[in-house]
C-alpha cells in the first residue's frame, strides 16, 4: 500500500502522552502496530488504529499480549518497524516473547505505561513498578534498553529514540513511562519530517551465499536480512550458531551467544545512555529521579536552593542500561543522594550498588499519588543536615 497520508504531523499540538507516543512511533517509521486494550495504554492503540491507515501502515488488534508481542516480532522480520504498547498485566504476558526478541535480535519497540500492581492492581493510577521487570522479566541472561519519559514532548521524542536504538542494536527497546506521563496533557512540538533523525537497521552487504545471519560486525551487531529478500534466514529461539542453526548442548556456543547479546548493549552503554543534569555543578545533595517524580524534583531542588541547600538533580532519561558512570562520578563528590520513586525501591537499589559509601535517602510512593515537591524537599533538607 502506497504512502499518501502524513506520517509526521508537523506543528504544535495539545495531546496526552499516549497520543504523543503513537505520533512519535509513526514519525520514527513505525509501520506495524499490534496491541491489546489495556488501561492506561489504550489511547496508543486507538491513535494507531485511526492514523496508520492514512499512509498504509498496519494496525491489528490481537487476541492477547502474547500474540501482540509475537506479531511485532514477525512484522519486524518481514521488514517493518514495529511496536506494541501495554501496561503491567500485559507487560507480564509479553515477557515470553520479549525473550524471543532478545534471542533472535529482533528490532522492535515495547511501550509500557506503568500502573500500580501486583496483578490487576490500579488500572487507572500511575506507578513505576515495572522497572526491574523490564530488566529481568524474561528468563535468562540479557541486557535491554529502556527510556523513561517525563513529559508529553518526551513521549514523542523518546519513542523515536527507542526505534533508533532498537534498529541500531537489534534489540527490543522499551519506553518505560508511568501512567501519569501517559495520561498527561501537554504541548508537544512535532518538527518537520526532514528534521527528525531516524535510523534503519544494518543490511547485509554480501550475496545470500556469503551471508552468515548471526555473524556480528565490530559493534557486535549482525547485519539483518529480512524475510522475502532471498537470504533464506533461519531464526530460532534456541541457542544457535552464527549460521542461525540450533546448537543447544555446546557450552561454547551458548557462552559466545549470550556474551555477545549482553555485550552489544554493555559495550555501547556510553553511546546509549542519556541523562539530564539540573544544578549539579556545585551540588552536595543530589536527587536521582526518572519519569513523573523528576518533575516534582525540579521544584524541590529550586526550593532547596532558596533555602540555601546546594541541591541538584540527575534525571535518568535512560534507565537501562543503568547510568553507572554518571551516578558513580556523582557519588564521589556529593554528600548524599535522594531517590524518589513510585515503587517500593527498584532504581534506588542500583543507585546504592553504585554509590557505595555515599548515603542514599529513599522516598518511595505507591498507591497512585505522585510525589509533591515539598515531600522531596523535606528529604533533601534531612539529607543536607545528616
Amino acid at each position, binding site marked *: 500500500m502506497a504512502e499518501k497520508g502524513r506520517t509526521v504531523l508537523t506543528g504544535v499540538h495539545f495531546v496526552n502522552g499516549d497520543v504523543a507516543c503513537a505520533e512519535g512511533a509513526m514519525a520514527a517509521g513505525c509501520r506495524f502496530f499490534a496491541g491489546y486494550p489495556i488501561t492506561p495504554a489504550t489511547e496508543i492503540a486507538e491513535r494507531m488504529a485511526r492514523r496508520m491507515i492514512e499512509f498504509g501502515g498496519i494496525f491489528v488488534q490481537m487476541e492477547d499480549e502474547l500474540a501482540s508481542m509475537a506479531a511485532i516480532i514477525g512484522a519486524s522480520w518481514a521488514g517493518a518497524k514495529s511496536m506494541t504498547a501495554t501496561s503491567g498485566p500485559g507487560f507480564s504476558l509479553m515477557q515470553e516473547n520479549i*525473550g524471543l526478541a532478545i534471542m533472535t535480535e529482533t528490532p522492535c519497540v515495547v511501550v509500557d505505561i506503568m500502573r500500580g500492581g501486583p496483578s490487576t492492581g490500579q488500572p487507572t493510577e500511575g506507578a513505576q513498578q515495572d522497572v526491574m521487570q523490564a530488566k529481568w522479566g524474561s528468563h535468562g541472561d540479557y541486557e535491554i534498553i529502556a527510556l523513561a519519559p517525563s513529559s508529553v514532548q518526551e513521549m514523542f521524542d523518546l519513542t523515536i529514540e527507542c526505534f533508533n536504538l532498537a534498529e541500531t542494536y537489534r534489540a527490543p527497546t522499551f519506553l518505560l513511562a508511568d501512567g501519569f506521563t501517559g495520561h498527561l496533557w501537554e504541548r508537544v512540538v512535532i518538527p518537520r519530517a526532514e528534521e527528525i533523525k531516524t535510523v534503519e537497521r544494518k543490511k547485509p552487504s554480501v550475496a545470500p551465499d556469503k551471508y552468515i545471519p548471526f555473524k556480528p560486525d565490530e559493534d557486535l551487531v549482525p547485519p539483518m536480512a529480512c*524475510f522475502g529478500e532471498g537470504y533464506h534466514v*533461519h531464526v530460532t529461539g534456541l541457542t544457535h550458531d552464527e549460521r542461525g542453526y540450533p546448537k543447544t548442548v555446546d557450552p561454547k556456543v551458548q557462552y559466545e551467544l549470550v556474551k555477545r547479546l549482553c555485550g552489544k548493549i554493555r559495550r555501547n552503554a556510553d553511546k546509549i545512555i542519556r541523562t539530564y543534569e539540573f544544578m549539579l555543578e556545585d551540588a552536595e545533595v543530589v536527587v536521582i529521579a526518572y519519569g513523573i517524580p523528576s518533575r516534582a524534583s525540579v521544584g524541590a531542588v529550586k526550593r532547596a536552593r532558596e533555602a540555601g541547600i546546594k541541591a541538584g538533580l540527575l534525571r535518568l532519561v535512560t534507565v537501562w542500561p543503568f547510568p553507572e558512570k554518571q551516578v558513580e562520578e556523582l557519588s564521589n563528590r556529593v554528600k548524599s543522594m535522594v531517590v524518589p520513586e513510585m515503587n517500593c525501591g527498584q532504581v534506588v537499589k542500583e543507585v546504592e550498588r553504585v554509590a557505595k559509601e555515599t548515603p542514599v535517602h529513599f522516598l518511595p510512593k505507591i498507591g497512585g499519588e505522585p510525589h509533591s515537591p515539598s515531600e522531596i524537599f523535606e528529604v533533601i533538607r534531612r539529607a543536607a543536615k545528616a
Partner: protein
Amino acid sequence: MTNLQEFERHPLANYLRVERFPHIWCEGCGNGIILHCFVKALDELGANMDKLVVVSGIGCMGRVAGYIQCDSFHTTHGRPIALATGIKLANPQLTVAVISGDGDLFAIGGNHFIHAARRNVDMTVICSNNFNYGMTGGQCGPTTPLLSYTTTTPYGNIEHPFNLVHLAAASGAVHVARWTVLHVKRLTESIKKALQKRGFKFIEVVSPCPEIYGRRNKFGKAIDTMKRYREIAEIRHGYAPSKAEITSEKIVVGEFIDIEKPTYGELLQGQFMRFNKG
C-alpha cells in the same frame, strides 16, 4: 563414471537445508513424510522459495522450519500463528505456512489458532497430529484419545480430545482437510490446493509416533500403524467436520471445507483504498 554426488542427490534436495540432516525425528515418525509432501507440493507448484516463509512452534514438528530452504522461524511454544500473522500482514507478498504439532497449535497455542482463523489471515496451517507430546517424552495433550496411556495419564486419559477439523471449521477456516501420512499423494495435492488458495487454510495430518505414544499404547511398529490407517481410514469429501471423528475404529479423512471469504489483508486493503479515495 557419473558424478556419484550428483547421482545421489535427492530430487527435492534443493528445497531442504540438507546440511542439517540427519533430522531429529525417530524412526517411523510421520513428520518426515509430512515434510516430504510439503516440499513435493512446493516443487510441483514451482514455488518461489525466496517468497516463502515457514513458521513453526516447539515440539518434534517444530523443528521442521529449520529443515526447509527458505526464510523460516522456529518460534516460542504455541506462538507460530501469532508470529506468522505479523509476517503476513507486514509483507503481503510473502506466502506464509505454519507447520507444527497438535500440542503446540491446540493446547498452548489454541487461542491464536481460533483467532487467526476467525480473522481469516492468509496462511496455510499444517498440523502433525500424533496425539501426544513426543519431544518431552509422551505426555497427554489436547488430541489424546479418551482412555489412552501417556506419561501423565498413567491410568488412562480422562479428558475428551478436540476434533481439530471441527474446531477449524467452527473458527472460520476457509479450507479444512484431514489426511494420514499414509495418504502421501492426496496430502501433497491437498497442500498444493491450500497454498494456492487465499485465506486461513487448515490441514490436519494424522501421524504415527511409534517410539513414544505407540509404544505405550501397544500399537506395534510404525508399519503396523500405517497398515491400520489403511484399514480404518475412510475418505469422505464434504463430510460435516463435526462428524468427522477419529476413533480406534475409524479415521474420517478428506477435504471437508472449501469456501470463499475475504481475507483480513483484502479487507484491510479495501479499507485503505476507500480511505484514500480522491
